[in-house]
């Protein structure tokens, strides 16, 4: 078999395995109440322990957005709009994207490494001969935990990003803190509804949940398919991070298209 054909075949097998795993998780959702302790542990390990990274990166992303956009707005005398732009950018796009890219690099890689190590040290075979369902035990709690963590971290990332943007607006663009915060809050309000938030906020949170599913499925699949000792675990981890980030970017385009264009 030629190299490109082999690569294509492997790609199709990989995607097929991921889809099969995703449906296997869906089928096992009724088992979730029994797994809440494992879910909580995974939320703590993935979400709480990675919180500082998300906050730090979120803060600087907000500052970058404010600075880059603010310089251009200042040229046309529209720097007062900076609060609106930073708030919408963070809520709609930067918050979920940055948060989930960090989660892909931290939680996704650790899923692939943990499960991959189990695979190469016969622990997955042990589960199989003990008739223990590895999707219920390993994948379901990890995926659920990430689907819970990702939107919560996205909200925090959005918040610190907007605050970081405010700092830049005040110190670099000479926009008052009050004006910045008022315009940011105004941009994130949609009065008259039960939950008075605009579509951008829901879209961002929806995206983060879809990205979380992608990260968990890709990370767990890579781990479950790992073979060949430490080298195999390394390959699985690298593939998990790479594929998750690619999947996030592609999914981001299609979700944005579906929500704003279609």
């Amino acid at each position, binding site marked *: 078999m030629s190299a490109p054909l082999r690569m294509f075949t492997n790609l199709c097998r990989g995607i097929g395995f991921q889809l099969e795993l995703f449906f296997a998780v869906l089928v096992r959702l009724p088992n979730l109440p029994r797994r809440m302790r494992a879910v909580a542990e995974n939320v703590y390990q993935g979400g709480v322990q990675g919180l500082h990274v998300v906050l730090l990166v979120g803060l600087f992303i907000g500052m970058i957005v404010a600075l880059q956009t603010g310089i251009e707005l200042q040229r046309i005398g529209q720097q007062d709009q900076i609060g609106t732009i930073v708030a919408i950018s963070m809520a709609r796009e930067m918050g979920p994207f940055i948060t989930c890219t960090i989660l892909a690099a931290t939680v996704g890689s650790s899923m692939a490494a*943990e499960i991959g190590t189990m695979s190469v*040290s016969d622990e997955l*075979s*042990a589960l199989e*001969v*003990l*008739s*223990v*369902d590895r999707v219920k*035990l390993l994948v379901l709690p990890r995926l659920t935990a990430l689907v819970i963590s990702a939107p919560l971290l996205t909200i925090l990332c959005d918040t610190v990003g907007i605050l970081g943007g405010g700092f830049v607006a005040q110190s670099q663009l000479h926009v008052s803190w009050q004006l910045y915060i008022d315009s940011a809050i105004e941009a994130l309000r949609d009065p008259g509804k039960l939950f008075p938030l605009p579509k951008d906020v829901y879209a961002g949170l929806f995206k983060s949940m879809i990205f979380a599913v992608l990260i968990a499925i890709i990370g767990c699949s890579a781990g479950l398919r790992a073979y060949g000792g430490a080298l195999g675990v390394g390959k699985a981890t690298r593939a998990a991070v790479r594929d998750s980030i690619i999947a996030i970017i592609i999914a981001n385009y299609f979700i944005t298209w579906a929500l704003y264009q279609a």
Partner: protein
Amino acid sequence: MSDQREVLIRFVDVHKSFGKQKVLSGLSFEVRRGETLAVMGPSGTGKSVVLRHAIGLLQPDSGLVEVEGKAVPRLRRRELSELRKRMGFVFQEGALINWLNVGDNVALPLRENTDLSEAEIRRRVQERLDLVRIPDAWEKMPSQISGGMKKRVGIARALVTDPEIILYDEPNAGLDPEISQSINELIVELQKKLSVTSMVVEHRVRCIRTVADRVIFLEQGRVLVDLPPREFFHSDHPRLQQFLGRDPD
């Protein structure tokens, strides 16, 4: 006189290749109820592959693999799962779940596959830990225990579902002679106490002398010699003499 006991495991003309490497080529043997069969042979002759076929972790390219009269490769997922609940497998390195402590490792199949109360699970697990002589190990993590202890935990986990068949993959691997002998004696004790049928893959003579009722010697993916241990170790088969002569034991 022929052995009248029921055949529990049967391999008939089993072939298996990994890529271009042929591992099993026409392997045939039987294991009868209550018997302990040792599988011996040079490295790379597919000894562990035989065990993995018996428990359905691997599928043969051709031939028949039967356990309790059922063709293992043709079983549906649920049927295979039921069969595995009556079998125990002791892995070479223990294969303990690294994030669960010893007690939770042993309790895992009961927690996942039964509706037993937590008190009953704890009672059964403690009973098995006592049986393999590690009564105080419950809270220890796999990373904190020795190789010999990992083997004992692996055996306790394999026993916790009360299996009728136990498969041991190199139970002496990586252990010093003293610990190895204690594991071998434990295997014999379990066979006497629980009347299980066992297959032991091992190449250490001392282990086989202690645990086996019958020994088969694999060469190039098929059975070359099939004898009781006493006759096996006194066989004048040139290949067997050559192999045993090089054995460190």
